[in-house]
């Protein structure tokens, strides 16, 4: 039997995107475009203060709102813990699906209400009375690590514990000794504010109970199986009772992986036997959904007069906000990348995952790495200025080469930094010297 080989004609050509036609006609169905008979609406009752003990929640006025159906509190949630990192073995599972005795940021959900219309759900949520005892709060990463700072976490320290250490550490060579040998010590302090993903479509889902006892969940999550698995864990139900339908995401950028709306909507669908729509308002998206972490980065480099970086020390404080979500993982990525794409023989890195009373930060486009790149490249320009060296040359002389060991003990393979910088210079109309143009990722010609 012979088979006719198909020609290879896909690579190198633009292909029509299968969903693009629906995008330009408006036919693409996003979750907000779905409507089901008897669909009810869910809204959260949120903490108005950054840190408080929860003494009581009173639904009596909310219950009088026409169209009110009911509410859920932590007592209704079978496993009342956000489990987003359980699946990849990262703890702690400290965040509650619905707050129990403490709230730790403005907007933390304490309960949800369900009503016949979205308007009634808003009104009912606004009429739930909260009895809160406000506690002192902390909003700055370095303030949070001081002795007398208010304690945010339930385990007593405002930092994540990495294998017994208060921060994620990398030690490579001897920076103390190298600094003695350096001609210049150049330091910088860099920081970024939190960044909101601000997708044009807000986070949301609709959970619909089916006649066979299953629940169908239409969601705009970026991570459909993550949402499915975590909902199953939180509801303590087998995954074959849940059917998740997704794939159409109106912008995510990392902001739609936190599995915030699906567990509560599914729980509501089961409790009230109604399709439940739980979609964030624009205000919730901006104020409550997770952000890229705020961070403060200190770098001290030991540099020789001819522009070789022989020592780099980095201390970074990443602001997880009130709960971990994906930030402890982002911190590890940050530590791995904090020396930058440069070969430096002596490196010391401390990266703290710090808890404050700000909204939780989490995943966003390269989180951990992007912040490191920002700070490192600012620092490279600072070194170039202080030594009066061309910034292109400084980067090319220090760029990692194939075969170089990274501070985290991996050998560099497939490096293209030298070639990328050369190509960027050409595109920018910058004339590099013949020596710099001759450099390659495959050898150390012109470096040592």
């Amino acid at each position, binding site marked *: 039997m012979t088979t006719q080989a198909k020609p290879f004609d896909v690579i190198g050509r633009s292909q029509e995107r299968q969903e*693009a*036609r629906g*995008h*330009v006609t408006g036919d693409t169905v*996003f979750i907000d475009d779905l409507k089901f008979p008897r669909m009810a609406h869910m809204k959260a009752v949120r903490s108005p203060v950054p840190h408080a003990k929860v003494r009581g929640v009173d639904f009596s006025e909310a219950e009088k709102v026409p169209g009110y159906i009911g509410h859920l509190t932590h007592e209704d949630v079978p496993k009342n813990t956000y489990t987003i990192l359980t699946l990849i073995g990262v703890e702690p599972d400290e965040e509650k699906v619905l707050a129990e005795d403490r709230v730790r940021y403005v907007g933390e959900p304490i309960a949800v209400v369900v009503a016949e219309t979205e308007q009634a759900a808003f009104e009912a949520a606004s009429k739930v009375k909260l009895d809160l005892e406000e506690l002192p709060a902390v909003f700055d990463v370095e303030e949070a690590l001081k002795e007398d700072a208010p304690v945010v976490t339930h385990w007593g320290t405002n930092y994540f514990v990495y294998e017994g250490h208060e921060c994620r550490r990398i030690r490579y060579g001897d920076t103390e000794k190298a600094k003695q040998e350096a001609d210049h010590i150049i330091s910088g302090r860099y920081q970024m504010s939190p960044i909101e993903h601000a997708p*044009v479509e807000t986070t949301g889902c609709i959970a619909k109970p089916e006649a066979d006892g299953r629940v169908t969940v239409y969601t705009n999550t970026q991570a459909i199986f993550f949402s499915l698995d975590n909902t199953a864990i939180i509801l303590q139900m087998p995954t074959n009772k849940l059917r998740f339908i997704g794939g159409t995401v109106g*912008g995510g950028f990392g902001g739609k992986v936190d599995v915030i709306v699906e567990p509560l909507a599914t729980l509501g669908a089961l409790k009230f036997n109604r399709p439940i729509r739980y979609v964030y308002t*624009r205000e919730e998206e901006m104020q409550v959904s997770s952000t890229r972490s705020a961070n403060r980065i200190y770098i001290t480099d030991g540099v020789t007069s001819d522009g070789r970086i022989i020592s780099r020390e980095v201390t970074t404080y990443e602001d997880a906000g009130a709960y971990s979500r994906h930030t402890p993982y982002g911190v590890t990525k940050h530590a791995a990348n904090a020396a930058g794409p440069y070969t430096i023989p002596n490196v010391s890195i401390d990266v703290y995952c710090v808890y404050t009373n700000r909204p939780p930060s989490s995943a966003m486009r390269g989180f951990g790495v992007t912040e490191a790149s920002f700070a490192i490249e600012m620092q490279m320009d600072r070194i170039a200025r202080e030594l009066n060296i061309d910034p292109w040359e400084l980067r090319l002389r220090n760029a990692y080469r194939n075969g170089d060991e990274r501070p985290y003990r991996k050998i560099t393979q497939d490096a293209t930094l030298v070639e990328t910088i050369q190509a960027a210079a050409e595109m920018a109309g910058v004339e590099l010297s013949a020596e710099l143009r001759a450099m390659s990722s495959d050898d150390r010609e012109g470096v040592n």
Partner: protein
Amino acid sequence: MTPRAITFELNGEPVTTLAEPLEPLQAVVHDRLGLTGTKAGCRQGSCGSCTVQVDGEPVLSCLVPIEHVEGRSVRTIEGLTPEGGELSPLQAAFHEGFATQCGFCSPGMITAASALLERNPNPSREEIIEALSNNVCRCTGIEPIIQAVQDAAARMRALEEAAA
């Protein structure tokens, strides 16, 4: 507020619907009449996803009370899509030029751009940017969008000339 019957023209056809007079046009078109191409991204007039044309002018339909369009002509993305499976030159330019990424802002972008090309068949780059300044694309693909509007304008002028 008590709902009442409100009559207007929607994509060329007269329509009468029961609605509260201050209900946003976006909610009436999207939720009551089922034309779901008109997206709500913010419900506060800042994202442009809900852009529709009222008497040919682009408006943010989340901020327009339905009674404001009584007796007037409303056009949505559905009304800008030709019958029979074809795409309009503007839609085709967006499609072929990869001027759509997540797709949530696209109907509003196309509706706003269509209003521009109706009144100005040969807009400058600056005029396109000005006309789309109410519309947010967070996937940051704004350059292909500007290019698509320019391409569409050229195609439409070529069609005009061929017909003349």
